[in-house]
């Protein structure tokens, strides 16, 4: 096909200018595309708007073939370009004119509606097409959010903390730094939860030990400062192990690993350590060490190396008192005793009250000294007072006794000095005093005397058998001293051991489901020197290690041990002699 294309336009003067172009092709492309043979350079025209093909003469088609990218796909048209036919292609007018000689066809193309001549009516309405042109704010929102957050969560709370010079010292209504709290405090710290500066004393300085020690004054070191391993802990802060804001339960991790890090091989860390290696209660823990008081001080004896004995200066066979058949009572015949008859829980229920003569022993072990007068007993405690009471008792008998009592007490006929008729003579008075003193001395000797002395006395003075078993030496060790006024006696003080393992945290109440004898088997014990403390094997029957184990209580180090050195941590009577070094340093630092 050979086509003559005449592009027609008007110059500034309004004169028609024609550009002729000869196109020879099988089909002629019409469109905005620069490769088009008929180039319609206008944005309103599709890239490949249409084609002119030869179908027995030129035919303009749109959307049929080769124009799949046409934007007017829907509007399919096909127009035969017979001379005189005019079609609109967008803003262009395409007119067919008679073909000159040798041409298949001829067309003129003219832009009839130039883009800049179009009154942009629709364009005027097509404003605000993007989010930005709709005025959707991005920077303003960003800035606003930044300012709101900076003021709300930083400047306001910081204003409370930083005590700026223009601020009034008055407490703000709202504790705005509440939002800075990263997590709940442990329960005991919650009363000061709103008062951050109680612990966080200085801005940008880590919590100092002084803040902790203000309340925790009695907290001790892990090892006393005199020991070398204390160096290991120098420069450590409380907060390195104790982290608050980590839940309401605890500030530290109850974790054997923490202890075992050092105690697995303790001497590699602390050369002079007295403790043995331990890393787990179930399978790596030494036998217990008992703290036993002696005449010269306290000794610590480890179980497992032979029997352990203590010296309490008291004669007490548990076996006799716990005899299943009962023990003899002066009034009630045979009485069965159990542990609780003597061992009473103290106020804490963790431990036991000391054994007291008056409460626990004297119901049976009465301190009567005169068979004829069973209502009188010597006071327990001081031998000298007992002797005085005896002397006064017999002196009173010598003065006041009826004939019957007098004869029973002194074994001679007569009556109290004041009950006789007439004024007593000098010799009668001296005789009465001699009788009273002599009897008192014998009774005192019977009470306190050593077995040898008592036996010697027995041969010359027949005495009550009942009396024989009630003497002090039944339970006590007694030392006799000879003085100018006759013999006197000292009772060796009895030593009760209240805490065999004073550093352990053992709660008897927590073990109330067990029988006493499960751990303390004393039913066969005939001597008070027997020590009936349980061994680690006894504990391990119920207590496992740090890893869970079937039918065992999982037991970490902290179950029984404390980290901080505290003598008798649960002993309500315990008073430190002076504040710990840490507390003293804290006080100085203030």
């Amino acid at each position: 096909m050979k086509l003559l294309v005449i592009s027609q336009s008007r110059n500034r003067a309004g004169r028609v200018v024609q550009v002729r172009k000869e196109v020879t092709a099988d089909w002629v492309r019409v469109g905005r595309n620069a490769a088009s043979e008929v180039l319609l350079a206008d944005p309103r025209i599709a890239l490949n708007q249409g084609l002119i093909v030869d179908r027995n003469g030129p035919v303009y088609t749109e959307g049929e073939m080769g124009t799949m990218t046409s934007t007017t796909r829907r509007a399919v048209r096909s127009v035969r370009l017979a001379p005189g036919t005019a079609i609109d292609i967008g803003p262009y007018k395409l007119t067919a004119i008679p073909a000159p000689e040798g041409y298949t066809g001829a067309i003129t193309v003219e832009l009839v509606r130039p883009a800049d001549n179009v009154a942009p009516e629709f364009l005027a309405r097509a404003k605000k097409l993007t989010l930005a042109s709709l005025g959707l704010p991005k920077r303003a929102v960003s800035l606003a959010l930044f300012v709101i957050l900076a003021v709300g969560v930083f400047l306001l709370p910081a204003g409370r903390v930083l005590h700026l010079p223009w601020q009034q010292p008055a407490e703000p209504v709202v504790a705005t730094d509440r939002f800075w709290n990263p997590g709940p405090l442990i329960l005991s710290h919650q009363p000061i939860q709103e008062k951050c500066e109680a612990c966080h004393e200085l801005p940008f300085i880590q919590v100092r030990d002084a803040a902790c020690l203000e309340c925790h004054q009695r907290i001790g070191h892990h090892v006393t400062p005199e020991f070398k391993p204390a160096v290991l802990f120098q420069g450590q802060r409380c907060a390195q192990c104790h982290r608050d804001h980590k839940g309401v339960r605890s500030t530290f991790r109850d974790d054997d690993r923490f202890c075992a890090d050092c105690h697995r091989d303790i001497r590699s860390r602390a050369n002079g350590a007295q403790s043995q290696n331990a890393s787990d209660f179930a399978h790596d823990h030494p036998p217990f060490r008992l703290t036993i008081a002696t005449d010269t001080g306290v000794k610590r004896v480890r179980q497992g190396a032979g029997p352990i004995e203590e010296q309490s200066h008291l004669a007490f066979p548990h076996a006799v008192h716990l005899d299943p058949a009962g023990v003899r009572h002066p009034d009630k015949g045979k009485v069965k005793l159990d542990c609780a008859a003597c061992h009473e829980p103290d106020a804490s229920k963790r431990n036991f009250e000391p054994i007291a003569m008056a409460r626990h022993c004297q119901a049976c072990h009465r301190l009567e000294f005169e068979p004829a007068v069973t209502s009188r007993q010597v006071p327990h405690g001081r031998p000298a007072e007992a002797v005085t009471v005896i002397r006064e008792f017999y002196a009173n008998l010598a003065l006041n006794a009826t004939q019957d009592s007098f004869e029973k007490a002194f074994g001679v006929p007569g009556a109290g000095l004041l009950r006789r008729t007439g004024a007593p003579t000098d010799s009668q008075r001296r005789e009465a005093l001699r009788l009273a003193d002599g009897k008192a001395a014998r009774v005192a000797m019977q009470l306190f005397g050593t077995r040898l002395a008592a036996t010697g006395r027995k041969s010359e003075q027949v005495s009550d058998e009942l009396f024989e078993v009630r003497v002090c030496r039944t339970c006590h060790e007694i030392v006799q001293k000879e003085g100018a006024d006759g013999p006197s006696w000292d009772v060796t003080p009895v030593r009760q051991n209240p805490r065999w393992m004073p550093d352990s945290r053992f709660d008897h109440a927590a073990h109330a489901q067990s029988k006493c004898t499960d751990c303390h088997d004393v039913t066969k014990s005939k001597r008070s020197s027997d020590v009936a403390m349980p061994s680690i094997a006894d504990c391990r029957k119920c207590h496992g290690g740090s890893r869970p184990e079937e039918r065992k209580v999982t037991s970490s180090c902290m179950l029984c041990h404390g980290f901080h050195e505290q003598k008798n941590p649960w002993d309500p009577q315990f008073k430190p002699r002076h504040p710990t070094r840490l507390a003293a340093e804290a006080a100085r630092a203030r």
Partner: protein
Amino acid sequence: MRHQSILEYAHFRWFKAALAMSVIAGAVYLWHDPPVKPYGGTWLGYTLGTIGALLILWLLWFGVRKRRYVSRVGSVQGWLSAHVYLGTALLVVATLHTGFELGWNVHTLAYVLMVATVASGFYGVYVYLSVPGLMTANRGDETLDAMILKIDDLDREIREKALSLPDQILKVVNASLDGSRLGGTLGRVLSGRDRACPTAAAVRDLPELGKRLTGDVAKLNHEVYTLLLQKHEILGRARRDLRFKAKLDLWLYFHVPLAIALLAALSAHVISVFLYW
């Protein structure tokens, strides 16, 4: 040259970097044995927090870098790839930094803003990967300006031709000429529709109204109808185009303010933590 998405930039270089960072952070977290429980104040917590804070500052710097056309520190494409992947890694690093300890406080606020920013970024990546293809397909070989010019041109042509049509039809056609809108409100831009489009009404009503017409007027009516159909079609595409463009833009209206808010919350978090050390 095959088109390479930002996700596969430089053979997934930044994906590998982000993956390595996340895996290392996770492994150290599992190995780490903190004094009480994992949180931001252990040595690992401080380390992860520092990495996270630096990452956030660097990610924010992307807003500056992408405007620096003369900068030669990597290509913007590379920066964007790294921005996406390291932003994802930040999610892991910051989460481990928290030790999964969250509450109603400024610290968790910073974390939540960080998560929200990253989430909006994920949506942005999705939009950037899916919408441009749809947009190109919708546009064909035209631009939005060309479509608007074309509609204007069609309007002119319709206006000329419709003059000879009966009043009833002219009224409907004029409504399309004078009342058709593109954009203008957020609802229309985001929906890509105009419920009350007069052109759609004209296209719907014209065949019915022109039923009785005969001869030249009927032919003219058909021509006008054809032109209205074209206009309707272009209008529809232009509106969809607006919608696509809005979709490409919209997420940034969340991503950027959230990121700036995060900067404020992060600063408050860091300063408050050390103020009350």
